[in-house]
């Protein structure tokens, strides 16, 4: 039964993502996860502060069900179907360890140095989590979508705006990891 804990290969996971998109298209919806952040802001009353949040969020409740599904999926996969470790490229793991002091590659699913609860009090860790989350939320809405909305849905429909956004995602990601990581960690 060891195989059940093994990670799924890309050629299984990738097509499954496409299936998710087609199921949502078939039900008359769209595959896009970051819209939920806007919906949640509206539910929280952000419509009072900006018109951007004044919309009929009840129409978007289906997408919150997708969020609920993602939460449940994460719970079941991590509890019953995974060894909760991730093996990455050895050289990359070595670099993380020697240059940035992140030694948990191969031993954890998320780096314990950043995501272990006891490290939440560390100011640098808090900065990483808050700055990262803020830019993800701000950037996704500015760009009109995230990895699911642009890289999967938009590119599947051969939309030029999505290609520009995805190029932006990679420019940002590469700047962060190759130029800013040495300054942050």
């Amino acid at each position, binding site marked *: 039964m060891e195989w059940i804990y093994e990670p799924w290969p*890309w*050629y299984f996971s*990738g*097509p*499954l993502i*496409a*299936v998710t*998109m*087609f199921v949502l*298209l*078939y*039900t*008359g919806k769209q595959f896009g*996860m*970051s819209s939920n*952040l*806007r919906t949640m*802001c509206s539910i*929280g009353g*952000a419509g009072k502060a900006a018109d*951007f949040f004044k919309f009929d969020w009840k129409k978007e409740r289906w997408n919150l069900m997708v969020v609920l599904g993602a939460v449940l*999926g*994460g*719970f079941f*996969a*991590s509890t019953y179907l995974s060894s909760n470790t991730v093996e*990455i*490229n050895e050289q*990359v793991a070595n670099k993380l360890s020697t240059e940035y002091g992140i030694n948990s*590659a191969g031993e954890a*699913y*998320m*780096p314990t140095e*950043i*995501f272990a609860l006891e490290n*939440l009090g560390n100011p640098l860790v808090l900065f990483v989590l808050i*700055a*990262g*989350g*803020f*830019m993800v*939320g*701000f*950037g996704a*809405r*500015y*760009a*009109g979508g*995230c*990895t699911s909305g642009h*890289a999967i849905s938009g590119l*599947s429909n051969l939309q030029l*705006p999505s290609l*520009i*956004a995805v190029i*932006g995602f990679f420019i*940002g990601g*590469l700047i*962060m*990891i190759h130029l800013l990581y040495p300054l942050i960690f």
Partner: protein
Amino acid sequence: MYKSEAASWFRIYEMFEFGSFHMYGIIGSALLIGVLGVQIIKRKNIKAMGGQEMQLNPKEMSIPRYLIGGIIFGLGWALAGACPGPMYVLAGSGYISILVVIAAALFGTFVYGLLRHKLPH
């Protein structure tokens, strides 16, 4: 997401270090099937459930909006190691710290809503 390890910070880092084909394989194979499927939907004019049109509307063209927004998103994606889908997966997996990331992402969305009219689109 969890089982494919696409929700793992390590895999995102490794992707931007070009250390493995894994993430590119996931996105690439999803895209290949996505592009083919959308073409079939358009050619055969397949309707969604209940006969309504599928939501395949083109987005309004702009370069600064998608490029600047995209770069900011990419900076955050590589720093927190999670994008808006996997965040919820990780919350379900019991990573309490990801709730800080989600709260910050909500705040980022809120600030965008406040500044929207002042930003180039």
